[in-house]
């Protein structure tokens, strides 16, 4: 089973910025360690939502708007793709992600299998 592990953070409650340089480095180290964990097949950190462009097509015309599709306090900051036997394994991986304990939240979504 494949899972998209979405990392959400909320700048106003995130404790990341309050960390010392050393602690920040350690947190980044944790993210890289998870990237290399068995079963993790992909992932990336995203630029902030202010850099997003939303695209629609109406009557054949491409319309673009500045900003994310959904204006929410919690923004998708990155993701991993994870191949695991079951949801318990995915939950355990999600719980290891630093954002989960730093005021953010992780959303685990199974991919449709084809």
């Amino acid at each position, binding site marked *: *089973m494949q899972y998209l592990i979405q990392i959400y953070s909320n700048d106003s409650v995130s404790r990341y910025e309050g960390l010392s340089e050393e602690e920040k480095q350690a947190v980044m180290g944790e993210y890289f360690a998870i990237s290399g964990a068995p079963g993790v097949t992909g992932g990336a950190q995203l630029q902030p939502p202010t850099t997003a462009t939303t695209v629609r097509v109406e009557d054949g015309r491409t319309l673009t708007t500045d900003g994310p599709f959904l204006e929410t306090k919690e923004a998708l900051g990155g993701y991993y793709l994870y191949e*695991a*036997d*079951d*949801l*318990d394994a995915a*939950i355990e991986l999600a719980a290891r992600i630093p954002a989960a304990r730093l005021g953010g939240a992780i959303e*685990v979504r*199974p991919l449709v*299998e084809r």
Partner: protein
Amino acid sequence: MLAALIGLLGDFDLAEEAAQEAFAIASERWPRDGTPANPGRWLVATARNRAIDRIRRERTLVAKSKLLEVSEAVEDEIEEQVFGDERLELIFTCCHPALAMDAQVALTLRALGGLRTDEIARAFLVPEATMAQRLVRAKRKIKAAAIPFRIPPPHLLPDRLTAVLAVVYLIFNEGYDGRADLAEQAIRLGGALAELMPDEPEVYGLLALMLLHDSRRAARVRDGELVLFKDQDRSLWDWPQVQAGRAALERGLALRGRGPYVLQAAIASLHTAESSDWPQIAALYGELARLAPSPVIELNRAVAIAEAQGPERGLDAIDGLDLDDYQYLHATRADLLRRLGRRAEARIAYERALALARAHPERRFLERRLAELDL
């Protein structure tokens, strides 16, 4: 039987359909050919064969599905271990914390209690369509998100067992204020858990707690009105059930249990004595409050303190509890104020409790107490 099938097939809907087919075949054949030597085994085997036929038919449609993998493994294994008891795996799946609590409760009653969807809907006072939708969504999630069908590994077991016990206790409490069938279901589930997990003290604690509370059912209401514990007719208590509750508690204590359910059961057990040991009860509530801080537990501790040391001390313990929307806080305060002769304050407290009370027996009790203040 359903538990075994779900375990074998890894799919709730398929298992349910197969079980229904097997029962239909049985009702046709058994009267004609006689009942097989092992009816349970016969039903599981028949249902399993039906399910595999169905999977074979669908094989052309679904190129690669988990069901298919399961069914092949099942065909190999099935001859050796026909009918394992997989109720425990099933309850851990139904009570998985990735499912909403109301879905956990509904699934547990459906899969382990054998209740029909309309029965569960009625028990929880929701429309049948809502309950059906809830069950469908939960079953879909179990499959789509691969919620595992297994007894959790040791590092997950404590949390997961807590979740299972919470579901069983919630079912019990839904039944406590009237719907006896739910309380019975919960006690049956608790008994099954104790049988399946004989080394877990909290399982015995919960079973003991439910048995002891439920044993007073017949005495709790008289002429449609709530009867306070100390005014109950003890000859109406179900004494064999009290004994069973005490035995379960003994077992939990022998396993060195000191968790929330064991403590609550110990309190309930002290209440079955000829005269309640209030200082000991207050101490146990204190221990419980340290384990799981909660204003409701503090309120109960205050009641015990009032009995042990007088209403004045009980009121002191109630002051400052953050429970303004809780009818029992106001009912308790009202009773203590009444006993102290502070009628005006008692009246306000009774009225507040009455405004929050839902169940009829409790309303009647509060109304009578309020009327008596004027005498």
